[in-house]
């Protein structure tokens, strides 16, 4: 009840932009995911604060002055200013997590990265001296490139026209593409692998395959592209 009334106030304040004044409701929750758009995002990176005054004078100075006066949203528990903080890995951990067991999800991911590193270092030591530079040993870059290779370019949406529903190819936002890549990766590892292997083993196999542009997730992505290409005649059914 309180949430819906707050939502109403926020949506009202957000929609009527001309009346957007420095205004906060009398009852404020400390950590909340929906804030008045008057609140600014927190700056977590350490490098942003260690820069001297003489960088990017006009914009930066203005932004800093603004941040001194405006209220700032509370940072979430998962954001850190450490060098090991990777937003993509954090997102993946949250997607793997079930029943709120983030410790287990994070363990799985760290074991996956370790496993990837082990396999790559083994490969590195086995290759002859001339080809050693081509082996990528950094598990984070492997993770990032594998996910990039899994992201689809166009997606399909079910649009109803004249009583019949058609699969129409549509452009996807970056967030949606990243979500689809991660979702396919996780479902593929959970369902289509041998049940006696650990999740970190399955994930590392699939990530290394995606890095080489092979494997079931890449196949799924190509199938989506083929479906989109087959349905390209219906592209005009979109209205946005």
């Amino acid at each position, binding site marked *: 009840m309180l949430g819906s009334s707050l939502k109403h106030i926020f949506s009202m304040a957000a929609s009527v932009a001309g009346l957007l004044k420095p205004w906060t409701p009398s009852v404020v929750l400390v950590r909340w995911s929906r804030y008045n758009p008057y609140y600014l995002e927190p700056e977590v990176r350490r490098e942003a604060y260690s820069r001297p005054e003489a960088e990017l004078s006009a914009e930066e100075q203005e932004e800093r002055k603004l941040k001194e006066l405006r209220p700032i949203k509370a940072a979430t528990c998962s954001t850190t200013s450490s060098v090991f903080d990777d937003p993509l890995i954090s997102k993946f951990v949250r997607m793997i997590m079930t029943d709120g067991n983030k410790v287990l999800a994070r363990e799985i991911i760290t074991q996956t990265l370790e496993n990837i590193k082990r396999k790559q270092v083994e490969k590195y030591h086995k290759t002859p001296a001339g080809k050693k530079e081509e082996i990528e040993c950094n598990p984070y870059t492997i993770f990032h490139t594998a996910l990039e290779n899994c992201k689809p370019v166009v997606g399909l949406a079910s649009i109803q026209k004249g009583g019949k529903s058609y699969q129409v190819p549509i452009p996807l936002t970056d967030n949606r593409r990243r979500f689809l890549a991660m979702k396919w990766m996780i479902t593929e590892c959970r369902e289509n692998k041998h049940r006696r292997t650990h999740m970190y083993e399955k994930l590392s196999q699939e990530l290394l395959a995606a890095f080489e542009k092979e494997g079931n997730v890449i196949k799924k992505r190509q199938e989506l592209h083929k479906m989109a290409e087959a349905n390209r005649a219906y592209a005009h*059914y979109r209205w946005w």
Partner: protein
Amino acid sequence: MSAQEKVRLLLSRQNGKPVLKPNRALVLKDAVAIRRPRKGEATCITEMSVLMACWKQNNFADALCSTEISSFYTCVSKAQAAMKNQSEQSLHQGRLPPKQALTLLKRFPNIQSEI
């Protein structure tokens, strides 16, 4: 002639039949009808068709179609920015969207009684 006098003329029975025979009071409501916005056109169709042709030629290999993919992405980002600007521009052109008009009317309704 003011609006009140015009309305009085339209309702009067002195010059024959009245022009208006309202069954409700001639009073403005505190709400506006929310009409669905006009359906637009599909954006970035040419870029998409070019991309699909490239895919068909190269058997869906993405390494060979990188230029088409990047041009498609730029088109998509431009279209999204244009959509965002359009919703802001409608405010500046003197035309208030029905939802915002509704919230304003709810906050500042018509006067019901004299104070």
